[in-house]
């Protein structure tokens, strides 16, 4: 018997990255990784997990959520009324207590993700000045490997470098900033628009070619030049883009122009559901879906990937680095509102919202999200997300899976929505149903590939032993909301919804190489404007729990 050797016996494997679609196989684990089957048939594992009749997939990967950092923490403090009425997460021998609501506490976030079979998650919007805070919260978010994207679409140095036509400075700055924050990827949120919001009352950019006050650059330049620098740096996930004009009727043209601004470079457009609207002038009567032309573009341009940002009906909390959007939403819903200006870097808006199926706009948003899953031909380029908690909680993923795998259920819910949804979107005419293999792609293999995580999202030798075992059920929502077993780094962490091991997980980050001579210019600018000292800015490695560098640090030289 070999110590720490585990065998998952006779499970039905869905491992699309390795071309395995529902095949009954054994899976071997050692040292926290998946290994090839031992050549000696007499090898005895220390533990055998009988998985006959069960579905085995890699652990889920949420590539776009908001689970840590300053804005998430503000949202938690802002919604005591929600927490008071939410399910209580009680302490056990291996877990901390916690709170739920639309913005769960750190520990509860980890337990709930793991309880649903997810083992990796990325926070999508951390201002570099909040990076230390995000890492500290990661250290209290168990059961998950984690990373975050670094806000830089409204960073003054980024815009200044573009204005001065200094692509080398821009490239060095992006690499320096990612390294200083210990982040994973560049994130552009309403590029240029947040800066205009800081300059003018209710300010924003109107499209890709609006000039940003003071800097004289356009969102198109920010998108294309950051994408170019990221490509040259060889980042595993080059650029993660929240387009301009989120939520506005008629914004689909901005989204299309953003895709074009990439000029063939790799780029990921996030929560694209919120950016796929026809109509104009804020008029609800003209609001409609424009997924068809946008999906056509995605289908014919392999450089573009998307995640959906599915809306689910119910109450939630909107939190965004898009300051003007937060203001817009707070005016619509009339509730409490938080707005923040993060010095030279970013903005933020937070407000409670409620999606109602009887509202034409909300029901259309729900339908538009589902259209995206069903109209993109290649599942490797569409990823499941709710933009947690903006479109809904990550806990709604099993329900989304049911929508995708069961068209009768989908159509039944559509019938409860505002009657005009059928005419303003194509959802009623879409009969596609996802297979389990396709679900494994959009929740695991696809996001791993898009993020450049070679050790995740698959079950081949060398992969991290992050594995979820489900009990098959006709109702896919039931199947996916309560896995039989969840294995993280080779250890069983959840059994039938009960957390057995609350390990914290790894921090995934990048450290691209850059021209260190460029630091002098960055430092001069930094010391002129920032409220903290240069030497205090970079996140010390001691803040990171089990750091894992993704990609080669030698790329980009």
């Amino acid at each position: 018997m070999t110590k720490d050797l585990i065998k998952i016996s006779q499970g039905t494997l869905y491992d699309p990255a390795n071309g395995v679609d529902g095949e009954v196989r054994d899976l071997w684990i050692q040292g926290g990784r998946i290994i090839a089957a031992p050549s000696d048939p007499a090898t005895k594992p220390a533990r055998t997990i009988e998985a006959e009749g069960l579905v085995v997939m890699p652990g889920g990967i949420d590539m776009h959520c908001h689970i840590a950092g300053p804005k998430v923490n503000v949202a938690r403090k802002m919604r005591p009324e929600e927490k008071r009425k939410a399910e209580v997460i009680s302490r056990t021998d291996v877990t901390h207590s916690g709170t739920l609501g639309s913005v769960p506490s750190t520990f509860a976030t980890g337990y709930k993700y793991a309880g649903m079979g997810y083992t990796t998650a990325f926070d999508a919007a951390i201002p570099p000045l909040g990076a230390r805070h995000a890492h500290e919260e990661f250290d209290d978010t168990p059961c998950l490997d984690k990373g975050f994207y670094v806000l830089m679409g409204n960073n003054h140095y980024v815009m200044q470098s573009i204005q001065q036509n200094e692509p080398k400075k821009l490239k060095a700055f992006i690499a320096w900033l990612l390294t200083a924050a210990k982040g994973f990827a560049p994130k552009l949120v309403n590029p240029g628009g947040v800066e205009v919001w800081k300059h003018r009352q209710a300010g924003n950019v109107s499209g890709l070619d609006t000039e940003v006050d003071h800097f004289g650059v356009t969102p198109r330049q920010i998108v294309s030049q950051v994408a170019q620098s990221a490509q040259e740096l060889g980042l595993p996930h080059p650029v993660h883009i929240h387009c301009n004009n989120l939520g506005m009727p008629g914004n689909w043209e901005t989204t299309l122009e953003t895709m074009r601004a990439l000029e063939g470079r790799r780029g990921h457009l996030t929560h694209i559901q919120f950016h796929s609207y026809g109509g104009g002038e804020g008029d609800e009567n003209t609001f409609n879906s424009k997924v068809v032309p946008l999906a056509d573009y995605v289908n014919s341009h392999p450089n573009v990937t998307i995640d959906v940002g599915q809306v689910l009906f119910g109450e939630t909390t909107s939190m965004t680095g898009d300051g003007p959007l937060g203001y817009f939403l707070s005016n619509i819903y009339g509730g409490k509102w938080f707005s923040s200006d993060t010095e030279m870097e970013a903005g933020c808006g937070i407000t409670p919202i409620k999606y109602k199926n009887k509202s034409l706009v909300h029901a259309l948003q729900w339908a538009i999200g589902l259209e995206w899953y069903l109209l993109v031909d290649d599942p490797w380029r569409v990823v499941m997300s709710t933009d947690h908690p903006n479109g809904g909680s990550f806990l709604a993923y099993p329900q989304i899976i049911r929508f995708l795998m069961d068209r009768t259920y989908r159509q039944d819910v559509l019938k409860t929505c505002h009657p005009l949804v059928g005419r303003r979107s194509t959802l009623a005419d879409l009969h596609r149903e996802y297979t389990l293999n396709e679900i494994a792609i959009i929740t695991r293999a696809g996001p791993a590939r898009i993020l450049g995580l070679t050790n995740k999202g698959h079950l081949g030798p060398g992969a991290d032993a992050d594995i979820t075992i489900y009990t098959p059920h006709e109702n896919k929502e039931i199947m996916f909301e309560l896995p039989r077993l969840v294995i993280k780094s080779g250890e069983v962490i959840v059994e039938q919804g009960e957390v057995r091991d609350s390990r914290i997980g790894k921090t995934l980050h990048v450290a691209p190489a850059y021209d260190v001579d460029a630091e002098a210019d960055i430092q001069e600018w930094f010391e002129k404007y920032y409220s903290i000292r240069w030497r205090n800015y970079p996140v010390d490695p001691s803040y990171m729990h089990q750091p894992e560098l993704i990609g080669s640090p030698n790329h980009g030289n």
Partner: protein
Amino acid sequence: MPLTLTYTGQTSVPVEIEGFTPSWAKDKSLAEIEQFEIFHGNQKLPLAEMFRVEGNASDLRFDLEGDLSGVHWIGAHMSEGAIHIHGSGGRHIGSEMRGGEIHVDGDAGGWLGAEMHAGFIHVQGSAGHLVGAAYRGSAKGMTGGMILVDGDAGNEVGLTMRRGMIAIGGRAGDVLGFNMIAGTVLVFGECGIRPGAGMRRGTLGLLGPNPPALLPSFRYACTSHLQVLPMMCNQLREQGFGIESSVANAECDIYSGDLVALGKGEILIAHQSAS
């Protein structure tokens, strides 16, 4: 025959009996009732460890005996029946109640009737802060029902209340009706500073002596003998709330505000009789 609970606890640590309502108890045996889980600080205990339980709850009536000022959430979430506290009670009495009535012979702690939706509460002594208020973060406080306090009440009475009636026989604290959405609060004693700050609609009646200066965002509207005031006072008298007839028929100065919010609220300031 009501269910009688005699408090036997001797502790300075808060005791919480949230969820112990007449509806829950009505079909339970005494043995089951004695096992109802309460909190003593962060420890869960059966009810019988802190209360002697007698009688039965089939008629939806509770009689609570002893000094219950350290026992909180009495009658919270109740929807029917009657609870009579023969002494003082703690915080959150009648919180989020939807029906039934609660009578307190002594004093009540803070958050009396917080976020209550319907029902009736009468405190013969005084109440703490935040009577009928919204809990922190909530969009609405009390949305219906009636709370009568014969004695004094603390600050922020009627915070963000949406509907319903609160009457304070004695003095009310500061920021009466703070951020009030609608509803009625009448104070028959003195009142603390800044009444009606941020109120959108609703009525505050400052019917006692020495009314405070109003915020500059309130505008004088008129002076009038309001027909509705004696009607409201009659309604309160019918519920056993003592009001002098001179007050019920007093002439009032009426102010509109708060103009920093919607500005559709009103504050009535009663002219005091010459006696």
